[in-house]
């Protein structure tokens, strides 16, 4: 609303402009940039914000002309602004990209169902086709089902593992070359901090790269599909994303997930904000530290990632016989939800024990780890269909034929 509404409009040219914009000098500034301290008017802010993202995209050569790019869309502020800006830059600079929205329906009543309504409005507002894929369809379990089964402890583990695979599955269904996500500079700094605190160096490496097509188990691509992932907002501050959405009046959904207070990230976040209040450059400093550390990790042989093959059950890239999602599902379907939570060696031991138990108890056919490991390593994943049908009862990707006929590709 107009701030001058309650007082008579001041005569022009009388008073010097309060807080003039540092760029155009002629309009009142409305934002102090967290990165630089620069004060900008609305139009100059829009211009600078969009241009910096354009520069990030071109400097890092994120896309090539003709690429089909999926925007991971949750309906939240980051992905809503990302969809808006991707569309705008694709038109303005003629990137020649074919954009689609890809949303994951985790099946969380009162949260995801509402946020998906926002994504559907974005689809219409930005005229970008939308695909929604659900945990229920992919895995047979919604998050509501999972929480009913296992309670609220560890449910974020399930959700995180399932989401990553679901995005890849969706990307394959959409035949895209590339997935962009809305991770911003603040998110990345938080993740760097959390990975350092947990001593998770492989993840540290992944979270700092602007573009990845690595093949580690719970990171992005499926080896055979060569789907790239990138973060065009890697250098974009959360404050500016929120201010951009506010001043552009973008329609986004802002309710916290009802199952995930994510206490650990919350603490990292508050800690970073407090540091930032003292030292303006904290966010970029931490991202740079993460990059420097991952460079030295890369140089160190001992931290190399294990050799990758394909999950014997679903074909997803994995360093073990079963990928993490299949392991978690096996636990769920057998009523042993602890399976797959915690340390890898422990998981594998539990998996072997569970496989043995269930074979004895119910006669379920479970691939024998020693017999199958040599034969299932198809380099192109071509035999994943046959291996998942070979008498295995628990499958989470319910055959790719079914997936391709899933009816939710809402073209406009």
């Amino acid at each position, binding site marked *: 609303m107009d701030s001058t509404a*309650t007082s008579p409009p001041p005569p022009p040219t009388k008073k010097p402009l309060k807080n003039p914009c540092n760029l155009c000098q002629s309009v009142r500034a409305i934002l102090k940039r967290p990165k630089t301290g620069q004060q900008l008017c609305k139009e100059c802010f829009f211009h600078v914000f969009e241009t910096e993202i354009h520069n990030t995209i071109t400097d890092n050569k994120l896309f090539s002309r003709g690429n089909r790019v999926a925007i991971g869309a949750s309906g939240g502020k980051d992905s809503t602004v990302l969809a808006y800006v991707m569309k705008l830059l694709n038109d303005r600079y003629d990137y020649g990209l074919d954009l689609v929205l890809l949303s994951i329906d985790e099946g969380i009543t009162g949260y995801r169902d509402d946020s998906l309504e926002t994504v559907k409005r974005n689809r219409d507002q930005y005229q970008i086709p939308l695909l929604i894929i659900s945990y229920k369809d992919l895995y047979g379990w919604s998050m509501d089902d999972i929480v009913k089964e296992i309670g609220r402890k560890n449910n974020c583990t399930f959700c995180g593992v399932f989401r990553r695979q679901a995005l890849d599955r969706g990307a394959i269904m959409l035949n895209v070359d590339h997935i962009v996500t809305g991770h911003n500079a603040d*998110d990345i700094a938080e993740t760097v901090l959390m990975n350092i605190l947990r001593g998770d160096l492989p993840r540290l490496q992944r979270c700092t790269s602007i573009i990845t097509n690595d093949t580690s188990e719970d990171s992005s691509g499926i080896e055979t599909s060569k789907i790239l992932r990138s973060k065009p907002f890697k250098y974009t501050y959360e404050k500016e994303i929120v201010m951009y*959405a506010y001043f552009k009046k973008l329609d986004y959904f802002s309710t916290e997930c009802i199952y995930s207070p994510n206490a650990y990230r919350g603490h990292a976040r508050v800690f970073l904000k407090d540091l930032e209040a003292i030292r303006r450059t904290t966010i970029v400093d931490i991202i740079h530290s993460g990059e420097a550390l991952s460079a030295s990790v890369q140089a160190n042989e001992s931290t190399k990632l294990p050799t990758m093959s394909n999950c014997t059950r679903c074909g997803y890239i994995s360093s073990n016989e079963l990928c993490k999602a299949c392991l978690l599902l096996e636990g769920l379907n057998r009523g042993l939800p602890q399976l797959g939570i915690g340390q890898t060696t422990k998981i594998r031991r539990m998996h072997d024990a569970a496989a043995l138990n269930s074979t004895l108890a119910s006669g379920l056919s479970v691939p024998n780890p020693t017999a199958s490991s040599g034969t299932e390593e198809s380099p192109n994943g071509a035999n994943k269909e046959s291996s998942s049908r070979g008498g295995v009862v628990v499958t989470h990707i319910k055959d790719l034929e079914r997936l391709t006929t899933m009816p939710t590709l809402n073209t406009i």
Partner: protein
Amino acid sequence: MVDSLKIELQFSGGMELLFDNQKAIVTQVPTQFPLESSASDEKPHAANIKDLIGWMATTLLKERPELFIGPDGSVRSGILVLVNGADWELEGELEYELEDGDEIVFISTLHGG
């Protein structure tokens, strides 16, 4: 002299969830702080945003004030504030002296991605 200021408060980005899901509240804020009812030994002064935040936390918030106000009496980190359409960091932040008719916006950055 007026004894209260008309202030329009607006909430966005999930902030409204703390204020009965209201997107905007027009309210009357005392012109002078500290209030007589408070035990504060602060010197009397004209209402500023810091006073407003404390006043909102005690009079408007129904629950969980820690999601709005920090231990230092400012908003919790991650909440953006706009004064008459501009970033409060350009307006003196906590020290900004309220004027009759001001419009103050609170935006949460903490919700969702």
